[in-house]
């Protein structure tokens, strides 16, 4: 079984984000592997450990941080890595990411694509699903468990509105995973050292047969034009002291001031 997993380098959400003139200030930002993608990588590696599978990771991005993230995937157990780096991809939307990934998929004939269900920078949650549509493959999103039935079938659990949906998929297929699917491993020092030596297959859009017109400007279905700070929610009244007394006071305020009862 050939597994393709996608990873995105995203801003560290634990750090503060500063804005200036409607844009995010780059200085001071740190980049990390998207948490959902880290779970996707872990899912792929665990499948590889249980069945015979080849694992490949693909990342769209540039720079040192992006390379480091790919190596982290290697250290976790992924065998090959592809990096799509092209200045024309500086501004993208989910459908463009999906279009690029579609070409990567078509070059490799994979049986299973595993992506994170969303990226923690955009919180869009679209790319994996749109990719499946472009490829005409079956897809289940928000997956919390995967079981391989045989070479052609997998069974997945998806967190849905009515409960956990158990879905049987015919391969090739695309799944997008939730972080709750697993606890990603911390790579061992030895694996980290070995990962440094692994080659990364670097490609630009031309290598994928995509022209710049297909990804930039008019091809963008949507574009972010401004960032603003969210309305800050202020803390209100905090009460300390005798439990019976302060609780009664708060309930009274909930009824008279907040009018929720």
């Amino acid at each position, binding site marked *: 079984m050939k597994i393709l997993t996608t990873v995105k380098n995203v801003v560290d*959400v*634990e750090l503060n*984000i500063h804005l200036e003139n409607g844009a995010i200030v780059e200085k001071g930002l740190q980049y990390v592997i998207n948490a959902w993608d880290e779970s996707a990588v872990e899912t792929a590696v665990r499948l590889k450990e249980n069945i015979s599978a080849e694992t490949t990771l693909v990342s769209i991005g540039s720079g040192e941080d992006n390379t480091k993230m790919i190596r982290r995937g290697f250290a976790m157990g992924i065998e090959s890595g592809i990096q799509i780096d092209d200045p024309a991809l500086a501004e993208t*939307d*989910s459908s463009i990411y*999906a279009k690029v990934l579609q070409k990567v998929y078509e070059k490799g004939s994979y049986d299973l694509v595993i992506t994170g269900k969303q990226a923690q*920078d*955009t*919180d*869009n*949650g*679209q790319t994996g*699903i*749109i990719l*499946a*549509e472009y490829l005409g493959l*079956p*897809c289940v*999103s*928000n997956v*919390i468990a995967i079981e391989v039935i045989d070479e052609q079938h997998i069974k997945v659990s998806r*967190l*849905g*509105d*009515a*409960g*956990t*949906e*158990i*879905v*049987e*998929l*015919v391969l090739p*297929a695309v799944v997008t995973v939730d*972080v*709750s699917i697993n606890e990603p491993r911390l790579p061992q020092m030895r694996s980290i050292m070995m990962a440094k030596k692994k080659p990364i297959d670097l490609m630009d859009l031309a290598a994928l047969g995509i022209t710049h017109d297909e990804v930039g400007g*008019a091809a963008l*279905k*949507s*574009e*972010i*034009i401004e*960032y*603003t*700070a*969210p309305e800050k*929610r202020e803390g*209100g009244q*905090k*009460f*300390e002291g005798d*439990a019976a007394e302060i*609780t009664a006071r*708060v*309930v009274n305020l*909930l*009824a008279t001031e*907040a009018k*929720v*009862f």
Partner: protein
Amino acid sequence: MAKVLVIADTKQGVLKNSAAELLSKAKSMGAETAVVVMGCGIETLVPSLAAAGSDTQYIADDPGLEFFSAGPYASCVVDAARQFGADFIWFGFSESGKAVAPRVAAQLDAACATDITDVICEGDKIEVIRPAITNKVIQRVKINAGQLVAVVRAGAFEAVEGVSGTENVVTLSSPAPDLKAVVKEIVSEAGGEIDLADAGVVISVGRGVKDQTGIDLVKELANDLEAGLGASRAMVDGGFMPHYKQVGQTGKIVAPTLYMAIGISGAIQHLAGMKGSKVILAVNKDPEAPIFNVADYGIVGDLFEVVPILREEIKKIRA
């Protein structure tokens, strides 16, 4: 006039609040409205869908649609969108909506925006507002495509009294089942529980409740108030609460009238899932807990002491 198609979510044959909220917003924009509803035995919903503000009701009533399956659901929405000539296709904030919206957008070659909290329409200009980066920033996004498929965040729009529509039913043809993604069963742990997304009051438990005894204590309060019971990630990871009850960026995002955080310290991840609530009450024994920075009312104290008093006092005041 813009044309807005709203996807009506249902639960066990009952209409969820999102349809009325989205239709109210569409009407306030002066749009022509339609609704699409999918399921089995749902034709009875037509009068309430019209009353909620839809002028046309696209109905896909088929035994094959009883259980959610993203492929056939997307086919129905695409069919309705084409027949109606929709400019906007709006989904409520449900797992089905999040799964189907990108498919519909891809099939229609439309723009897709998830998690939106507002839509701005001025002449030809269409923009949406949405939070990103775990609620740390708000994006203003310009829509370039002619059609916009959007998933609207819980609590973004309010259902307005006095909105109404007309009954005009269009029956959709049954979609082909997805033979490559077959739903085998739905394991419902939730049963008759109150859905977090629809609950007027949500009470969540965190590490402070310690174990099942603590959960049971809070559950009694939740039962009194007919509230949805949620949890922090710590409680889910610890195996005390099921995944579908997790409130937070990686779980459910809720915006009830009243949110009670019991024994929850208030990690960024959790705050991102409940900050949109109208009123927040926090109970925590640590006066420095970050939850107090967003709570309208904070009780510093031992929850095992406070929660029973809370129950009694609420009972008294509601009597």
